[in-house]
C-alpha cells in the first residue's frame, strides 16, 4: 500500500496542478494567498512588539538632501524630454509630460512594443505622436480602434512603439554624411519581426546600389516629412528613430561586408522608459494640462523580520496595501510592499529585491543628462548592491560616472523619482552599477504609496 501510494501520489500531483492554475489565474487566488501568508506573519508581528528591531533607513543628513536631489532630477528630466529641436516641434504645440507605467507585448527584435501611460485617453485627447527629446518613441493608440478596440476613453492610454506590428511604416533617411539626414540614403522603415536582430528593419530604399555599399553600423536614422500617404502630416521630419545596424557576411580577405539587410536599433530600452512627451495640437482644447500623478499615502511601520535575509521587512499599516506599492521615507525608497491580510505586509528593500527595476541615474555635475535604464540587482553585501543595467548606449555613460540613483516608473504604485542611493559605474565591469544605500537605525515610520487616482 505504501509503495503504491508513493509511486502515484494523487494529492501531491493535485496540488502541483493547483499551483499551475493559481499562476494562470492570480486574481482568483490572490485573496487566498494574502490570507495564507498573512496569517504566517502573525507570529513575527506579535514578536515585533517586544523584540522588533527598527528597519534600516537613512539618517537625518541623508534624508535632508533627498528633496534637493529630487528637484535636480526633475529639472534635468524635464529639460531632456522637452529638448526637441525648434524645427521639429509643430508651432505652438502643447507638450505633455507623462509617466510610463509599464512596457508589454513582444514586438520587433523581441523587445516590448507597447507602453501603458499614467494618463487616460481622455486626458490626452488630440495627441498623437509620442517623443522623448528629439527621438520618436511611438504613436498614441485610439480607444475603440485597432488594437485598443476594447479600451474606453477613461482607461490608461496605450502607446504603440515603432516596433509594434500595427505601427505605420515610416519614411526616413540614413544620415551618411552627418548632415542631419538631409542628403542621406532615403528608406522606408517598418517594424521587424520578433526574431529579427533589431526592433525595426529597412524595407525599401531609394538607391539599392548605395544601400548595398553600406558596411558600417551606427549611422543615425531620422524621419523625413511626407506630403502624401497614411503618415503624411503626421510625422514631421528630423525625429530620431535610432541607429542603423548592418546585417550581412564579413569577407575575411578584404574586410568588406556583404550587406543582406539593414535594421534600425532605437536608442532607448522600453523597460527603462520613465517619461515620454506627447504633442497636442494647439486647436484641441478638450484635454487636461500636463501634470505628473500624485499618490495617496498610508502611514505604516516597518520592522526587520527576525532571521530573514537582510532587507526583508515586516510592514504594519492601518489598512491593506497593494502589491508593488512603494514604501518610502521622506522621498527615499525603503522597499516595495507585498500586501497581506489584516494590515500586514512584507516589504523588500532595493538591495534584497530580485525584480527588474526601471531606474534613473543622475550623474554628478550638470554636463551629463539623467540616464533612464532598467536593471536587476545581481548581488548585495551589507548596504551595497550591484545592479546589472541596460538601456543607454555604453558610450554615453562614462566609465567614471558617479551620481545618485532614483526609481524610474515601476508600475502604478511605485512612481519615478524616489531616491535609492549613491551609485557609480563598477570599476571592473561597466555593465554593473554599484549602489550604496545609506543605512542606519532609527526611523520606523514610513509612507506607503497607494491608489494614485484618489489624489489627482
Amino acid at each position, binding site marked *: 500500500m505504501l509503495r503504491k501510494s508513493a509511486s502515484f501520489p494523487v*494529492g501531491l500531483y493535485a496540488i502541483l496542478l493547483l499551483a499551475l492554475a493559481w499562476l494562470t489565474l492570480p486574481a482568483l487566488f490572490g485573496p487566498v494567498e494574502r490570507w495564507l501568508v498573512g496569517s504566517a506573519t502573525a507570529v513575527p508581528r506579535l514578536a515585533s512588539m517586544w523584540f522588533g528591531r527598527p528597519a534600516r533607513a537613512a539618517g537625518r543628513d541623508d534624508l535632508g538632501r533627498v528633496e534637493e536631489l529630487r528637484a535636480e532630477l526633475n529639472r534635468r528630466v524635464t529639460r531632456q524630454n522637452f529638448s526637441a529641436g525648434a524645427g521639429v516641434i509643430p508651432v505652438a504645440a502643447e507638450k505633455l509630460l507623462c509617466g510610463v507605467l509599464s512596457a508589454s507585448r513582444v514586438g520587433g527584435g523581441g523587445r516590448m512594443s507597447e507602453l501603458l501611460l499614467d494618463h487616460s485617453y481622455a486626458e490626452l485627447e488630440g495627441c498623437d505622436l509620442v517623443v522623448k527629446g528629439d527621438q520618436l518613441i511611438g504613436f498614441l493608440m485610439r480607444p475603440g480602434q485597432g488594437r485598443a478596440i476594447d479600451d474606453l476613453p477613461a482607461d490608461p492610454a496605450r502607446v504603440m512603439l515603432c516596433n509594434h506590428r500595427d505601427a505605420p511604416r515610416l519614411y526616413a533617411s540614413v544620415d551618411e554624411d552627418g548632415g542631419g539626414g538631409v542628403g542621406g540614403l532615403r528608406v522606408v522603415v517598418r517594424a521587424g519581426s520578433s526574431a529579427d536582430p533589431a526592433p525595426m528593419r529597412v524595407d525599401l530604399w531609394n538607391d539599392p546600389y548605395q544601400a548595398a555599399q553600406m558596411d558600417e553600423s551606427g549611422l543615425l536614422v531620422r524621419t523625413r516629412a511626407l506630403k502624401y500617404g497614411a503618415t503624411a502630416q503626421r510625422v514631421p521630419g528630423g525625429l530620431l528613430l535610432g541607429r542603423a545596424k548592418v546585417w550581412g557576411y564579413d569577407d575575411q580577405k578584404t574586410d568588406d561586408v556583404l550587406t543582406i539587410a539593414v535594421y534600425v536599433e532605437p536608442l532607448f530600452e522600453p523597460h527603462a522608459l520613465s517619461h515620454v512627451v506627447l504633442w497636442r495640437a494647439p486647436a484641441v482644447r478638450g484635454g487636461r494640462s500636463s501634470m505628473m500623478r500624485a499618490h495617496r499615502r498610508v502611514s505604516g511601520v516597518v520592522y526587520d523580520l527576525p532571521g530573514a535575509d537582510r532587507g526583508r521587512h515586516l510592514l504594519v499599516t492601518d489598512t491593506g496595501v497593494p502589491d508593488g506599492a512603494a514604501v518610502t521615507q521622506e522621498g527615499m525608497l525603503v522597499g516595495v510592499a507585498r500586501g497581506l491580510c489584516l494590515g500586514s505586509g512584507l516589504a523588500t528593500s532595493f538591495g534584497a529585491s530580485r525584480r527588474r527595476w526601471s531606474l534613473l541615474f543622475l550623474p554628478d555635475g550638470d554636463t551629463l543628462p539623467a540616464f533612464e535604464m532598467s536593471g*536587476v540587482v545581481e548581488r548585495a553585501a551589507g548596504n551595497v548592491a550591484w545592479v546589472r543595467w541596460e538601456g543607454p548606449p555604453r558610450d554615453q555613460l562614462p566609465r567614471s560616472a558617479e551620481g545618485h540613483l532614483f526609481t524610474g516608473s515601476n508600475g502604478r504604485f511605485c512612481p519615478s523619482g524616489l531616491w535609492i542611493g549613491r551609485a557609480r559605474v563598477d570599476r571592473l565591469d561597466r555593465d554593473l552599477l554599484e549602489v550604496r544605500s545609506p543605512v542606519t537605525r532609527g526611523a520606523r515610520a514610513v509612507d506607503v504609496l497607494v491608489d494614485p487616482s484618489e489624489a489627482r
Partner: protein
Amino acid sequence: MRWFWWFGVVPQLFLLAGYLHDLGLPPVDVSVFGALFLAWFAQVRALPMLLLALAIGRSLVDQASLPVHLLVIGVPIAVLLPLRALFVAQHWLWQAMAASVLAVVIPKLSGLCARIFDQPAPVGILDPWQVFWAASLLPPLLLVARLSPPFRAFTEQAEQARRVAA
C-alpha cells in the same frame, strides 16, 4: 491538533533558520530539509497540506508568489517520492546525497520558475558551502525532527515501525 502545530511551527522555521545563521551558526536551507522529510519520511496522504505550510514559510523569506514555492518544493518531492521504496532503511548516506542534490536543484528550479512565470528570480550564484552544509547537517537534523513534534505526528507509520525494529 497536529495540523495546528504544523501550520504554526513550520513556516516560522524559515525565519528561525535565518536568525540562527545571523548568530553565526551554519546555514540550514529549510526548503531542502522540508522537501527531504516530505519525500522520504512523511505520510503520503498528508503531503499536499504539509507542502502548503512549507510554501507559506518560504514566502516569508523569498519574494516569489506562493504557487511558485509550491512548485519549487513540490516538484523535487514528486521526483524523489517513488525512490522511497528503493532506498529501504534510509541510510544516512542516501540522505546526504539527496540533500546535496536538492541544495542544487531547488535554487535552480526557483530561477527557472521565476523566468517562466515572470517572478522575482533568486540570485543565480550557487554557493558550494550551502551544498556542503546541507549534506552534513540535514541527515542528523532529520533524525531529530522525526522524533520531535510536529514532524513525528506526520512520519509514515511503516518508517516508524522500521525504526523501532532497528
